[in-house]
């Protein structure tokens, strides 16, 4: 218990110090993008890993969050905080509507509906020129500010890190609540769960709502960070990418979204080597590495880390000569 707190404190310290240690503006930018992705992917871990509902249309919610917030703030001059709030609400409503098909459909059929949803949003973005700017995009979106305090890249980093920690905390609380347990139950066996009196519809609505809130929120954060919007980051393959992040990070792991989001946002950037003739190869190698991860590590990086941690702990304990604890004791200690 105590040691765990120290780890957490260390983690916060690293988060806090990151912009000071690393003064590079480009890396800070990528890190901010990574955290925005992490917030969204955490929603997918929640929806797919915990509740077992597949969505391949999260980029649609991401787009709704980004565009609604920027349209409100650019075209109506609304304060950024309010426009983000409304964008999250709109995204939530869309998520609730999209949860209706999940009552009846499972896995592939559900993923088809979500794909269709994402495509519809994308076609609308491209074609409602008057509102969204079409293929040219929206420009001069105000940066996130609170009163007169403008958030520069470093301040935005702290803000995003705060939100990420908050999201993880909320998710941790939900995971161990009635709702979290019913999500596990319907994921495991929906008929048995219903027999036990769990309302599967309510659980699915909750999971879809939560994931769409996170996706819309990260979309709005993205829009007010980037300052301009084009339809490109919201194509279908971005949805696929988000799900890939969740799988690489570990679908059944609380930190899976964070690990996957940060790892897969950095991966293409790290592969963007400036060797002549190899400029186009980074996407190729990114997708290849992701395939290898999925094929070889179905539990994801999160699963791998926790396995390593358990093994290290055991070895460490073995060195000190204490006996291996029984699982129950360890559980109580946590």
């Amino acid at each position: 218990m105590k040691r765990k707190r120290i780890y957490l404190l260390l983690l916060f310290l690293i988060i806090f110090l990151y912009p000071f240690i690393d003064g590079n503006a480009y890396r800070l930018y990528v890190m901010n993008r990574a955290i925005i992705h992490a917030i969204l992917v955490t929603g997918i871990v929640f929806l797919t890993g915990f509740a077992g509902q597949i969505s391949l249309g999260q980029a649609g919610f991401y787009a709704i969050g980004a565009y609604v917030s920027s349209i409100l703030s650019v075209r109506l001059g609304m304060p950024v905080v309010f426009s983000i709030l409304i964008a999250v609400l709109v995204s939530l409503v869309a998520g609730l509507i999209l949860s209706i098909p999940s009552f009846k459909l499972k896995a592939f059929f559900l993923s088809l509906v979500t794909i269709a949803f994402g495509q519809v949003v994308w076609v609308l973005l491209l074609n409602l020129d008057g509102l969204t700017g079409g293929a040219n995009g929206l420009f001069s979106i105000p940066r996130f500010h609170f009163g007169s305090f403008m958030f520069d890249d470093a301040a935005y980093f702290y803000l995003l890190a705060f939100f990420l920690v908050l999201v993880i905390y909320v998710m941790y609380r939900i995971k161990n609540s009635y709702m979290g347990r019913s999500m596990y139950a319907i994921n495991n066996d929906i008929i048995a769960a219903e027999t036990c009196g769990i309302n599967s519809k309510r659980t699915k609505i909750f999971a879809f709502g939560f994931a769409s809130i996170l996706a819309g929120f990260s979309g709005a954060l993205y829009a007010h960070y980037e300052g301009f919007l084009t339809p490109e980051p919201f194509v279908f393959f971005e949805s696929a990418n988000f799900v890939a992040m969740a799988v690489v990070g570990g679908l059944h792991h609380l930190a899976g979204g964070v690990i996957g989001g940060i790892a897969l946002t950095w991966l293409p950037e790290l592969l963007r080597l400036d060797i002549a003739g190899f400029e186009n190869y980074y996407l190729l190698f990114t997708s290849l590495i992701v395939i290898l991860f999925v094929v070889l590590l179905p539990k994801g990086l999160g699963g791998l880390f926790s396995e390593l941690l358990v093994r290290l702990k055991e070895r460490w304990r073995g060195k000190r000569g204490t006996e291996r604890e029984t699982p129950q004791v360890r559980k109580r200690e946590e």
Partner: protein
Amino acid sequence: MTLQFLSDILQNLVSGIAVGSTYGLVGLGVVFLWQSINRINFANISSAMISVYLFYSFYTYVNMPVAIALILSIALVALYGLALRYLIYEPITKRGASKLEFVVATLMLTVLMMSVITVIFGGMPKPFPPIFGESGSFIRIGSITLSTIYLYIFVIAGVLIIFLHMLLRKTLVGKLLRATAQNNEAAQLMGINVNLTTSLAFVLATTIVGIAGILLGPIYFVSLELGGGSIGIKGFASAVMGGLIDPYGAILGGILIGLIENFSTLLISSTYKDIISFVILITVLMLKPNGIFNWTTKKGEAGQA
């Protein structure tokens, strides 16, 4: 005026059925794999892109005769199906992963194939070699004009579908495939080599989609659009119309989607044709999860994928 309108309708009817049947062929790829391994292959449409690019490079760069280039590219796409099985499907299944991992792996395979193509050929679309006649040429029947490309696709897709029907219904291979699809274990007990039929299903799926890709080439050009655009989703949609089970349902579903698309372009607007087909897809899924062209499944069986 009315004659012009009639000509428009006929033109759209032919091109809708032609394009729609290629969507149906793409859907067949989905159906065959779903039947044999109970998985959805999201890299289904990448076979179309691969075959088109292979054909393009064999025909344009290597200067092969049309027939040889066609056969070679289709054969390579068949090999791609085997690679899909032994490099993606088998390792994932061996590690006991769920269906979602296969979905993500095949999605990423699509991205990988698209970036391979981008690295080799660049992102710009290339003109499809005019093996189905020039793009501007028309056939006049009385005062009605029909574009020749669509007529070619119409005929070739029709022949292919009849061939597939014969293969599935009249030969031993078809019997083996259908038996494995119906009940894998029982088929095994009857002495059917399920390992072989699984490979066969993979090869068949990629080959059919590869041929569909070459048929779609004159319309979408030699472009990345064939590997990841909305065509793949329309293929899924046509497979769903047949409840993911009925091959004829998939073809009919594809034709329906093609017709809806063409007539919404003619009567409403071309920008929203995709939206209309997607909305129809969602409605069908919601109201009839077993598909509307499905004569194979009993009630209450599908939709539970």
